[in-house]
């Protein structure tokens, strides 16, 4: 029989308590326990980035993280991001540049993009390409995605909202 763990954490700014099986992934907890289905399940082994979330200010693959390990931490998912100023800058930029086709990779890429904007690790195209090397997109060919993040970088810098 599998043990369960009671955990408490902040999720998109809200104190959250949940009981999870010890072997459950954070991705499963978000999608199946907390009904936050914006974070996507694709490869399940850290290759594609569709499940990217932010934990204590850094992005991780939620499929590779044990839910029990969320205890005491601060989580941000795409649902929290889109409700923020940076999320709005990114959403508008992705829409304006046509960076979304099927849309499945988009939440993960926007989460990774906010990490880049927040860390100010550089807005050069080469930096942005490296920054999203862990996110696969099978539709766009990445060019419009890079365009969008580059534009959002400039906007965020101007507004100093990042």
């Amino acid at each position, binding site marked *: 029989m599998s043990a369960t763990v009671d955990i408490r954490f902040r999720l998109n700014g809200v104190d959250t308590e949940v009981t999870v099986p*010890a072997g459950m992934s954070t991705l499963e907890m978000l999608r199946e326990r907390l009904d936050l289905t914006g974070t996507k399940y694709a490869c399940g082994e850290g290759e594609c980035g569709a499940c990217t979330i932010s934990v204590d200010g*850094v*992005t991780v*693959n939620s499929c590779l993280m*044990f839910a029990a390990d969320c205890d005491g931490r601060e989580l941000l998912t795409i649902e929290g991001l889109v409700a923020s100023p940076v999320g709005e800058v990114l959403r508008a930029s992705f829409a304006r540049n046509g960076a979304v086709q099927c849309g499945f990779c988009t939440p993960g890429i926007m989460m990774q993009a906010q990490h880049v904007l927040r860390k100010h690790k550089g807005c050069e195209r080469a930096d942005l390409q490296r920054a999203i090397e862990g996110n696969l997109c099978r539709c766009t060919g990445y060019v419009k995605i890079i365009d969008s993040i580059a534009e959002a970088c400039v906007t965020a810098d101007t507004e100093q909202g990042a």
Partner: protein
Amino acid sequence: MSGISNYVAPRSLDEAAELLRAGNVTLLAGGTDLMPQSRNGRTQLRPTLMSIRRVAELRGISEAAGNVRIGALTTISELRDSVLVRERLQALWQACDRFASDQIRNAATIGGNICNASPAGDTLVPLLVLDAQVELASKSNGTLATRAVPIADFLLGPGQTARAATEILSGIVLALPPRHFISSFFKFGTRPALDISLISVGLAARRAGNALHDVRVAFGAVAPRPIRAPAAEAALEGKALDDGVIAVAAAAAEAEIHPISDVRASDWYRREMVRNMFTRVLAHVRDR
């Protein structure tokens, strides 16, 4: 899916070692290897799952008395962001820079990369050429004690290490290299990100003019564990790097590796890549 009957998250090394003494514990750090391996059946989780994330003694990079100590929980991103690592431990920095993806670098720990003991483990080749020691803590006699083991003796085979079940890898210690010391890491795969190395090359040496001294060479993904290459080291020791010396060293390296053929590459291809990439790494050192 999981037979975990007990989940524990100790807050001190002493407490973690005490829990390990009770036995039947799987250690969880970043989880980036443990999660997929426990899902696909390659690793059987033991009844107690122990997250060590809260153990403060396992964090941080520090420098004292000519040594660098890297806590086992240091993430690959933290190593990549460290000025000390970038400037003094170049080979390790290069491995961290090209490690998987940003998301994985943010979660994966150096202790986890070592204990996973993959023949292709990215940090292992730099740690071999930097002569690192791993620090193992345990309470097997009732009090907390540590022992140091050279990384070359710690890695035994794919997924196999010299860590006893009651021990926890607490950190990595290495002598801060002198000035004029160079180290370099290069890995080859089909794409730069998220690829398991087909082969990797590590080189470290003290440089005097165009000659290399105290030469250390290591290769990844060409044997059951990352290996030092003593014949290649001997071919380079004390000699000025010219085309002839480089060719002899590359031939020596090719002769002392034991690659396998698998889904990613044939043994022939790996031998060719080791010879060519090692030649390139040496030429790069010569020319800079």
